[in-house]
């Protein structure tokens, strides 16, 4: 394997989060009955004309800026011509030689190579095609045009990735950024994010690129990695057995984990691109670009650095807490409500994230969590108890201290109560008491544990030790 270097580039199609389609007013809602979100424009009726969706252009531009691209102040919509039943006009409106944006960079941390810069060759706007449904009517192909005209941004990376794991890791970073901008839902399940991959191999040290193949039909980042692994193995197998890699398009089969050539014929498509005469060149001003820049949130990378450098989070926590914009916003709200940042990060990366990942929502108000963190810091409740209180707050909003009291979780620091428990434990364990007194002082932990158990967790461990030492000593 080490004789071979893998070269991977990715093409990401992202659905822009607009209410209406790229060139008409139809809804982009997912999952509606077939052919209900259609009109003369997206049906390609004779005489109908496209009108660009300003929101799609704005989101595409914001995504491009977030990826560090140069935004072109004049870009051109072009017609990409081919016949397919789910392509109503016989051409797709896309951008070709004058894309919206080019020359971006997205860094990521590679397990093997450390910090790696991956170029974004281009980001262009286009409309989606409809959907051909082969299983809906037996023996026939049905066409659903609800998706036809849905706005997409296609993002093309340079051939800068070297392993399938890198591809996956980079996609994760890319997706984080795109989600931060709000330009897309980036949901692979709903088709708002699709990834095609190009892979070639070359002898380690070679400069020239090998023949690449394109892999489609991967429905998760994990499957992108699996598909690329399968294709890398296939290509190395071919070359090592003296055969050549041919330029083909392959489909990934998630069930078998294999890649297979597409059934369509090996015709090299001539899409006959030309500028769409229905759409004047898209012109943007410097002022407009500045507005889009201003509208961008702090991006994950900058936020991660600030969390580490300014708030003092450990690198791991800074990464986890900044990975998702709502999560990071929540974290900042907890800190703003007075919580210690490191303690807040512990909570956010722990119980908060578990609940958020399950429900997509934050069940506990940031101020409540901040108050709870304060109770734990002040020793009013133990960490263990605080987690129980958190679970209660998630079920029903309430004052954390009141909940702790209601559940009897407020730690007992009263010397009389502690002494009573300590005396009872010592009386119940004469052998251990003798050993302790004989010099085996590490048994102190054993006694603390017994006292905690006896108290039902209510004893303040910090208060128990001195009492124990005094009675045993």
């Amino acid at each position: 394997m080490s004789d071979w270097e893998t070269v991977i580039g990715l093409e990401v199609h992202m659905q822009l989060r607009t209410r209406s389609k790229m060139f008409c007013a139809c809804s982009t809602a997912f999952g509606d009955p077939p052919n209900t979100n259609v009109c003369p424009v997206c049906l390609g009726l004779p005489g109908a004309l496209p009108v660009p969706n300003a929101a799609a252009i704005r989101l595409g531009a914001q995504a491009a800026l977030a990826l560090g691209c140069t935004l072109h102040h004049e870009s051109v919509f072009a017609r990409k011509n081919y016949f397919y039943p789910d392509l109503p006009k016989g051409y797709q409106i896309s951008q070709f030689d004058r894309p919206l944006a080019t020359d971006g960079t997205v860094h990521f941390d590679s397990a093997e190579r450390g910090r790696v810069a991956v170029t974004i060759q281009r980001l262009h706007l286009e409309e989606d095609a409809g959907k051909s449904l082969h299983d809906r009517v037996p023996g026939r192909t049905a066409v659903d045009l609800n998706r036809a005209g849905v706005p997409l941004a296609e993002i093309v990376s340079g051939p800068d990735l070297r392993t399938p794991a890198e591809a996956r890791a980079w996609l994760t970073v890319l997706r984080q950024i795109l989600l931060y901008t709000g330009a897309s839902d980036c949901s692979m399940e709903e088709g708002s994010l699709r990834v095609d991959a190009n892979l070639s191999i070359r002898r380690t040290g070679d400069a020239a690129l090998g023949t690449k193949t394109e892999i489609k039909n991967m429905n998760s980042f994990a499957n992108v990695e699996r598909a690329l692994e399968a294709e890398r193995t296939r290509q190395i197998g071919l070359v090592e057995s003296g055969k050549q890699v041919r330029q083909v398009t392959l489909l990934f089969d998630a069930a078998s984990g294999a890649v297979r050539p597409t059934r369509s014929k090996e015709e090299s498509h001539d899409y006959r691109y030309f500028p769409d005469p229905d759409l004047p060149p898209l012109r943007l001003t410097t002022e407009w670009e500045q507005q889009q820049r201003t509208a961008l949130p702090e991006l994950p990378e900058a936020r991660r650095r600030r969390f580490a450098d300014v708030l003092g989070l450990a690198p791991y926590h800074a990464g986890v807490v900044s990975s998702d914009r709502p999560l990071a916003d929540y974290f900042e709200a907890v800190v703003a409500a007075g919580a210690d940042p490191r303690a807040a990060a512990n909570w956010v990366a722990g119980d908060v994230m578990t609940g958020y990942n399950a429900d997509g929502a934050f069940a506990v108000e940031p101020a409540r969590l901040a108050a709870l963190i304060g109770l734990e810091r002040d020793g009013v409740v133990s960490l263990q108890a605080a987690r129980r209180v958190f679970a209660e707050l998630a079920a029903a909003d309430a004052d954390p201290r009141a909940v702790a009291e209601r559940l009897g979780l407020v730690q007992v620091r009263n010397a009389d109560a502690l002494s009573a428990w300590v005396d009872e434990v010592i009386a119940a364990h004469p052998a251990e008491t003798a050993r302790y007194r004989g010099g085996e002082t590490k048994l102190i932990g054993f006694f603390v544990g017994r006292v905690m158990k006896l108290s039902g967790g209510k004893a303040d461990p910090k208060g128990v030790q001195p009492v124990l030492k005094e009675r045993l000593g």
Partner: protein
Amino acid sequence: MSAGAVAQETGAALARSDADGLNATLYWSQEWLDAQAGVIDRRASAGETLPLAAIPVALKDNIVTTDAPTTCASRILEGFVASYESTASARLRSAGALIACKSNLDEFAMGSSTEHSAFGRVRHPLDPERVPGGSSGGSAALVAAGVVPAALGSETGGSVRQPASFCGVVGVKPTYGRVSRYGLVAFGSSLDCVSVFGRTVSDASRVLEVISGPDPLDATSLDMDPVRPAAGRRDLAGVRIGLPREYFPPDLDAGIRAGLDRTIAAVRALGAEIVDVSLPHTRYAVPTYYIIAPAEASANLARFDGVRYGQRRVGPEGDIRSLYRATRGAGFGPEVRRRVLVGTYVLSAGYYDAYYRKAQRVRGLIAADFAAVFGTGVDLLLTPTTPTTAFRAGEKTADPVSMYLADIFVSAVNLAGLPALSLPVGRSEGLPVGAQLIAPSRRDELMLEVAAVIERTVPAAEDVR
């Protein structure tokens, strides 16, 4: 007169022209006219102001309406009724006009004689052996025959001015973008322009005023007020009119030259200053047009695939490719197929630069020619509309290039997106001669004002030869 009465009269006139074999209509019915008239009369009696109240207007059958079929004179769209209304026809209706009929045309507006209709050729109203010009020949013939006072046509490369000239009526092509293309079945989108026929400049202007103005449904529509020429101009004092020498070749038809000569003399007598000018790239206009228009057409006509609407034929292999081939092979006529093939070719990898890209550059040069001339203070250009009067049916059908050259004086205007019109200025051997006025971009009003003055001075029906 009530719209109901107009509908009756219009129906009778349409029936007569059909019976006479003009073959200018593709759809109308008395019930349809009466139903429209009922709506117009109700609106009028409710006190609505209707600028075109009960004015019958024929609609070229490549403009969609929801209450009548739209065929584009093609088998492939036989039976198709649009689910939406074009902006132009919606504005006509809103102004109270009576849509008189859908008129015959060259299939998908591709032709210069209206012989390329799947539903038979249109006869010239003055001589059934001759063509009315095209592609808007049905609309031109109906206005010339007195069936309707005005009609909508469409231009891609002179398809209104050329038949207007042949038929002896007024044909106005506005600046590209002043009339919405929404609902005009696309041929060459960067050239296509809904345009107007009228018996007089004033009739055409009234209709143009109603249908022009910005439309949010057309991204290429201009943000300009409707075309509204001022009334009251009596002479042409202070107007500088250029005669581009490339439009007056030595072999120009003698009757056409005579018609133009008297027009030039009249214009001079009206006080205009006449200057000789040059548009050096004129001879490249037709070849450039026949690259750009088919290229755009090849994409525009891809949607007629038999999948969603219109005629469908299942091919022998039974698969989708076979369906496309069978549907398009049977549905498109020979001229449409020729242009789709040419357009596909000039956009193909390896040929794009040599043809399409180069044609776009030449298009820029042609537009620059006009801009340069207008930049010297010339207000309008005056030229013949056509190199000959109406030719005989069948004369050019076997030779596409000679047919294309019938548009030699009109296509440059479309490439440059300029407003232009054709005005009848006399007859030669009984056949109308048209003069063309070309204006700078967005100067439609000036052009119409000057045309109205010329119209009053130059008798259109007088023999000049």
